[in-house]
């Protein structure tokens, strides 16, 4: 792929390509949908292009590592998902003051409105305001690429991080992108890091300096070619940012409205106030089209509030509610908002169609996410369930983030699920409540990648405070949820990285008991869990599991087939393997009244064999 080529690229790939065109030398990241493909794209060519690319232990470490590269003069990229920025925020709100040296550092944060693959729908733009850092919001795949060199330019000039915000809809959209040139830079060697990389003793001075930088950046943004803030005599103006530009254009066409001008703001913080006010001058109505919270809307409202003795247009958006404040935007929502503002009618489909659609809806069944056939997590949850049944007291199970989060949907195996590392953190609280009469035993469940990402402080706390809990670490050797990136413990490491053993680290916390289990040996795992429930203190069980999607494709063929013996299956009266164990490879044969295994889905793990109380499931 060379300069001038027109290629189909996703927004994430375009961001990565833009970073490569900007000449990055370093990229550190933790995987998280919808941001993962940025780093993956860079890894694909990193060796050839002499870029160091890594999956770091978590987003904070990734940001620290990339900042270090920038200090040493190497342009660095740090992509992450929305929630990742929460993890990195502690460092971010310090290094904004200390500065990033002259290498250049761009943080790409991918928000997920509607939470397609996230547990919240946070608007990460508030971090740029909180940290006083410049923010760019590209509106198309092409712009996502083009904006990256610009972002690095600003970062280098002001020696602070620049934040580029994408959303799922841009990150995962593919469109034609015209490539630019990849600079043919000799590998520069790193230089010494600058002096005074700390904020004490006078963080207030550093703060003052940062605010002065921000004033200058605002002036730069007044002239930025990435904004489209033309004057207009149209009555209604839409101020769009990010992907909502496209929705606005289409909504306007749909409603056949003429008296509307779409303005586009890409440099959303610090807001170039003069050009924004000028572009909105003489409008009677302004509609803000933005994903997330009314971020730009509030910033513009403040601009108007400060402007004395002038008429202010009516401001519409998420504050007055013409666009709802939750969920993801689309063409229809913008069209509805326009129809409420202008009074023109909008009906996406005729009313009789609505009625028919409503009736058809009754036929649909949900498809909740579930474990793949043969997934080790299902086996572990089955073992937990059996151990709970055998145990005489109630048990609460705290969950974490990863494929095993789907335990929420699997017979309510998990009682809680919040942030990375929260399984052991909340368990360390619950495990100390017995003196207040909390008499439930606590199990915390996390995976290998999450263990390293955020469980270690919780684990240390649990030991230090002597919390009573059982911590189950399901180690399937990969970060499965986001597409099988190696975790620190993975046997197969990228390049020269070194595998870090979970058991050794867990032992170092000096738990009262530590055991190693194997997910596919369900009876033994059940015994282990049950035994630990009867004990007091800090207990750790590391369960080795297999991710069937990450497993080599031919491993299935190496195992003997698993089948259901039609004569032994008692049929309708049981169905336990389907209704309770629920492996998707087991189907009901209506005519013959027994379960059967769908061969092309079954991975021959054999987990279901012990589940059948009638020994109908067999190997051979």
């Amino acid at each position: 792929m060379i300069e001038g080529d027109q290629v189909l690229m996703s927004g994430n790939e375009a961001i990565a390509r833009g970073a490569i065109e900007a000449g990055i030398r370093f990229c550190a990241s933790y995987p998280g949908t919808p941001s993962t493909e940025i780093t993956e794209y860079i890894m694909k060519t990193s060796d050839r292009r002499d870029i160091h690319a890594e999956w770091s232990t978590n987003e904070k470490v990734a940001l620290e590592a990339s900042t270090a590269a920038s200090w040493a003069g190497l342009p660095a990229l740090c992509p992450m998902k929305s929630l990742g920025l929460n993890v990195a925020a502690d460092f971010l709100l310090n290094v904004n003051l200390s500065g990033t040296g002259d290498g250049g550092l761009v943080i790409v944060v991918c928000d997920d409105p509607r939470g397609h693959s996230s547990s919240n729908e946070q608007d990460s733009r508030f971090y740029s305001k909180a940290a006083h850092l410049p923010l760019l919001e590209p509106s198309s795949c092409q712009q996502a690429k083009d904006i990256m060199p610009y972002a690095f330019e600003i970062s280098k000039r002001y020696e602070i991080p620049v934040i580029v915000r994408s959303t799922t809809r841009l990150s995962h959209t593919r469109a034609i992108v015209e490539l630019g040139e990849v600079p043919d830079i000799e590998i520069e060697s790193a230089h010494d890091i600058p002096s005074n990389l700390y904020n004490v003793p006078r963080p207030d001075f550093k703060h003052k300096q940062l605010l002065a930088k921000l004033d200058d950046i605002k002036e730069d943004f007044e002239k930025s070619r990435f904004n489209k803030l033309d004057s207009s005599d149209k009555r209604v103006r839409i101020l769009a940012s990010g992907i909502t530009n496209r929705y606005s254009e289409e909504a306007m066409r749909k409603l056949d409205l003429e008296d509307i001008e779409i303005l586009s703001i890409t440099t959303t913080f610090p807001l170039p106030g003069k050009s924004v006010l000028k572009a909105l001058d003489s409008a009677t109505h302004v509609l803000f089209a933005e994903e997330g919270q009314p971020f730009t809307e509030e910033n513009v409202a403040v601009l108007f509030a400060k402007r004395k003795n002038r008429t202010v247009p009516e401001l519409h958006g998420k504050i007055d509610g013409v666009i709802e404040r939750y969920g993801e935007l689309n063409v229809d929502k913008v069209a509805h908002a326009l129809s409420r503002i202008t009074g023109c009618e909008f009906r996406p489909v005729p009313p009789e169609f609505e009625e028919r659609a409503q009736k058809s809806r009754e036929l649909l069944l949900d498809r909740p996410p579930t474990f793949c056939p043969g997934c080790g997590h299902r086996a572990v949850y089955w073992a937990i369930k059996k151990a709970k049944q055998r145990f005489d007291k109630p048990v609460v199970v705290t969950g974490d983030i990863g494929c095993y989060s789907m335990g929420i949907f699997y017979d309510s195996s998990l009682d809680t699920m919040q942030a990375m590392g929260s399984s052991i953190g909340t368990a360390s609280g619950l495990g100390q409540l017995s003196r207040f009469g909390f008499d439930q035993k606590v199990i915390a469940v996390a995976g290998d990648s999450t263990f390293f990402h955020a469980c270690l402080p919780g684990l240390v706390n649990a030991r230090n405070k002597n919390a009573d809990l059982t911590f189950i670490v399901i180690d399937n050797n990969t970060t499965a949820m986001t597409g099988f990136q190696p975790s620190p413990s993975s046997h197969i490491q990228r390049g020269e990285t070194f595998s870090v053993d979970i058991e050794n680290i867990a032992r170092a916390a000096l738990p009262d008991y530590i055991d190693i289990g194997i997910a596919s040996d369900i009876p033994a795992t059940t015994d282990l869990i049950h035994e630990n429930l009867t004990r007091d203190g800090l207990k750790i069980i590391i369960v080795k599991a297999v991710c069937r999607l990450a497993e080599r494709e031919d491993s299935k063929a190496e195992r003997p087939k698993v089948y259901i013996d039609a004569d032994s299956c008692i049929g309708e009266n049981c169905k336990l393997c389907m209704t309770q164990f629920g492996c998707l490879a087991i189907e009901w044969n209506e005519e013959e009244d027994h379960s059967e295994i769908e061969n092309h889905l079954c991975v021959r793990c054999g987990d279901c064999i012990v589940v059948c109380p009638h020994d109908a499931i067999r190997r051979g």
Partner: protein
Amino acid sequence: MKQHQNILIAGVGGQGNLVCGKTLAQAAVEEGYKPVVGQIFGASRRGGTVQTHVRISNSNLGPLIPRGDVHIILGLEPMETLRAAIEYAGPETIALMSETPVQTVDSLAGRKLYPRLDELRGSLSALARRVYSVDPTETLEDLGTYRVQNSYMLGALCGIQTARLSKESIKTGLIEIVGRSQPNTEAFEEGLKAGRCAVSE
């Protein structure tokens, strides 16, 4: 000629939904359009609903087809075809549906009944202008792999002759995206035949 053509590919995780989308987009590029592909999926790899929106036009459209504006639904799974129609179909919609169902957790367990094909087809007819359905089972069993259903359906799409893109460019697109493997080409050709014979309801 219409301003643009919106094709919605409806299916479940693992059916090669995005591959279909990429193929059509590649075909569109061959013909000089500026396609845009958007995707809606949750935990897609793990059996959830997946929808890929392909918008073929000369301008840079948004990634998602607005409600009521879909021209063709390419349904890789019967119930998902209906789901897509409920959400996106309008007066101009033509639906092409594969008759091979993918059961859900509830239907497998017998807690809920997977809808009958004729019910699904009936509902679809009430929402779409024309409905075609094809049954790839025999071909896929002959070929010994379900992974090429998407190639079959792309063939069928060419067969019913409603796509703006030519058969040749879709074929070229397919080869570009999945390579020139025998099961894929064969599935495509079989789908093409099935599509040509399919009559709309």
